[in-house]
């Protein structure tokens, strides 16, 4: 037992959880914590808007696999975090959000900067806490980290009344903790693994659909082993991108609304689908009733509520993806010999070749997004981590920026948060200071959190932003072209801001390129730069992202 204030206990508990960085912005109700933070070994990174703090913590978590921590004051500080918390929740990313709260006696009195952040964040967190006594803090922090980072990860909010931060109490820091209502199922049931083995060994045309769960569970290696044993092609969901090397002969790329033709076509022919760490999102499956209606489906997920939520399956396996794949591999290798090729793998090659150059890329123009992103892939090392904004830029990145290593592609999949990519890139860079970090952006999205330029410059966190600039809210414009008779409603952004000047105003580099050659030079310069670089790439304003499966349609109705 040690006597200390709630704020000291918080910082000490965070330190015990090996937290080395907090992204945040102070305010009245969190000042006692900031005062203690000043003397601690934990680095604080000051943001200019709390939403960015949450995205930075999220980027940090996805790149490192460790929970990211963000902090804000009560009221507007806390509500500004909400988009970032919801984003982390949808993509199962472990973040801890610490918010200040008005003193206990003022809670419920509509005090200045009071907001019910527990009520607001209940549906978008894995759990949230509001300690009423300082002595609860060590336990709560321990539980918060355990909940956030285990099972299916997710955000946890700790809301600290100001007088709890200052209250002095005897503190007991637990080494281990039992949470009786929280016991994630880690080990798969052997009987289910056996059933899956049975189905897969008999399968003529096995197919693997791999999702974000593979990345979270660090299961890429074992996924590859299972795929090679089965000679099963692997398509990833958008969230699964990077879990399987996209230059592997069995890789089909990303499936779904803006997935590759080969992924969306091949899945129609499978007889047994092995779904690994996926949640059958509408963006991945298209019209769910017409997604693999006659296919036997095996689903592996650590979250039992994901089994059968969107799609009924034949063999559910609840368990950690990596552990399950290890078991599956063991039992499969007893029955299957490793082969070089099969009828099915030849058929897949055929589908791939048939569709290789089906998507037309404007050969007349130099600066089209497809070429720019392929060029970028050639220019940056394989361990480069790419984040994206949301919209056309994101889908082009998914299609044309191939990735080969897990955790090298980080994007807002579930919530689709414009403005995520840039602050996330900063968080990634903090977690992985030795690898280049690129945000593939659109002009609309980047503008939403461009004020994070201040953070990246003043805190010395150099990243590169590649803006595919069509002066449009491009994806909305694409839908208006395709489904609303080309009636452009509120999508034209004009040529503002001037991103070169904007970058310079914040002390970053700004480069506008006029050709692919200039783009190459700019990227090379950015890779060497010790300050953030913004590369403004003007692209044709009416370029579409294809392939596309219109919302609510089946995968068969893909247009390209």
């Amino acid at each position: 037992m040690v006597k200390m204030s709630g704020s000291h206990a918080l910082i000490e508990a965070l330190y015990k959880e090996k937290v080395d960085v907090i992204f945040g912005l102070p305010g009245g109700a969190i000042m006692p914590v900031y005062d203690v933070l000043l003397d601690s070994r934990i680095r604080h990174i000051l943001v200019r808007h709390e939403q960015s703090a949450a995205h930075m913590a999220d980027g940090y978590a996805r790149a490192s696999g460790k929970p990211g921590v963000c902090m804000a004051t009560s009221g507007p500080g806390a509500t500004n975090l909400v988009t970032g918390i919801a984003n982390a929740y949808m993509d199962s990313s472990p973040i801890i959000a610490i918010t200040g709260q008005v003193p206990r006696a003022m809670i419920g009195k509509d005090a200045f900067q009071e907001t019910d952040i527990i009520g607001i964040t209940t549906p978008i967190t894995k759990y949230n806490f509001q300690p009423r006594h300082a002595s609860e803090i060590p336990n709560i922090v321990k539980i918060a980290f355990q909940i956030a980072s285990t099972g299916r990860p997710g955000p946890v909010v700790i809301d600290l009344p100001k007088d709890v931060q200052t209250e002095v109490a005897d503190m007991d820091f637990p080494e281990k903790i039992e949470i009786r209502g929280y016991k994630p199922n880690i080990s798969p049931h052997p009987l289910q693994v056996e059933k899956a083995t049975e189905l897969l060994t008999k399968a003529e045309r096995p197919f693997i659909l791999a999702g974000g769960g593979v990345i979270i569970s660090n299961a890429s290696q074992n996924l590859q082993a299972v795929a090679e044993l089965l000679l099963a092609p692997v398509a990833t969901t958008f969230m699964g991108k990077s879990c399987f090397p996209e230059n592997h002969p069995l890789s089909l790329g990303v499936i779904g609304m803006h997935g590759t033709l080969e992924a969306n076509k091949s899945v129609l022919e499978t007889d047994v689908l092995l779904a690994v760490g996926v949640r059958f999102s509408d963006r991945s499956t298209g019209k769910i009733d017409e997604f693999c209606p006659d296919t036997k489906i095996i689903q592996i997920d650590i979250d039992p509520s994901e089994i059968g939520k969107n799609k009924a399956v034949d063999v559910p396996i609840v368990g950690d993806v990596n552990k399950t794949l290890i078991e599956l591999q063991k039992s499969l290798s007893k029955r299957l010999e490793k082969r070089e090729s099969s009828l099915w793998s030849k058929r897949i090659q055929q589908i791939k070749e048939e569709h290789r150059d089906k998507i037309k890329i404007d050969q007349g123009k130099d600066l089209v997004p497809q070429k720019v992103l392929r060029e970028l892939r050639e220019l940056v090392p394989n361990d480069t981590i790419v984040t994206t904004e949301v919209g056309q830029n994101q889908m082009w990145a998914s299609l044309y920026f191939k990735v080969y290593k897990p955790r090298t592609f980080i994007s807002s999949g579930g919530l689709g948060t414009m403005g995520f990519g840039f602050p996330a890139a900063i968080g990634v860079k903090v977690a992985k200071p030795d690898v280049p970090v690129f945000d593939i952006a659109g002009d609309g999205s980047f503008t939403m959190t461009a004020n994070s330029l201040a953070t990246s410059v003043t805190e010395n966190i150099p990243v590169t932003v590649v803006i595919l600039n069509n002066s449009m809210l491009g994806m909305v414009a694409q839908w208006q072209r395709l489904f609303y008779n080309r009636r452009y409603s509120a999508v034209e952004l004009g040529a503002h801001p001037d991103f070169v000047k904007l970058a310079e105003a914040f002390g970053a580099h700004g480069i506008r390129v006029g050709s692919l050659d200039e783009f190459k030079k700019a990227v090379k310069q950015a890779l060497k730069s010790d300050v953030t670089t913004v590369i403004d790439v003007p692209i044709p304003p009416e370029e579409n992202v294809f392939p596309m499966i219109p919302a609510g349609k089946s995968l068969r109705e893909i247009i390209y």
Partner: protein
Amino acid sequence: MVMEEKEEKRYIISIIVENKPGVLYRAANMFRRRGFNIDSISVGPTERKDLARMTITINGDDATVEQLVKQLGKLIDVIKVSVLSTKNTVVRELALIKLHITDAKARSDIINYANVFKSRIIDVTPGSMILEITGTPDKIDAFLNLAATFGIKEMARTGITALIRG
């Protein structure tokens, strides 16, 4: 297109939860968020001070109930979820019924009916009576139908609570 027939049934779900503030909110918020329509919910203490029991009834098909149970299981404050089978479960509900009664004939009739249903009279004024009835929801429904002929002024039902036999 052939629509699959989904059979709607009544389910009783018994949930052991942490006995602390905010737990009902978390559960209720999840029902709302996921679109589960709850018929009744009752919450009260258990034999252990740190645990509470929620008993909910829901009309739905097997798939809906399975998803509801899984979503409940995900809540950190939920310790145990059981779907109770109607066969080996004891189910009780309590209702308070205020009747508009003015004439003596009606008053004596209702007293007779109340005796048949083992309902107790707990308040009487010149213009009204309050009856208390405990039992299965079916029994309460039957008594309410009867009472309705006298004119129900107000009524309050607790929703069911239940335990497995043995």
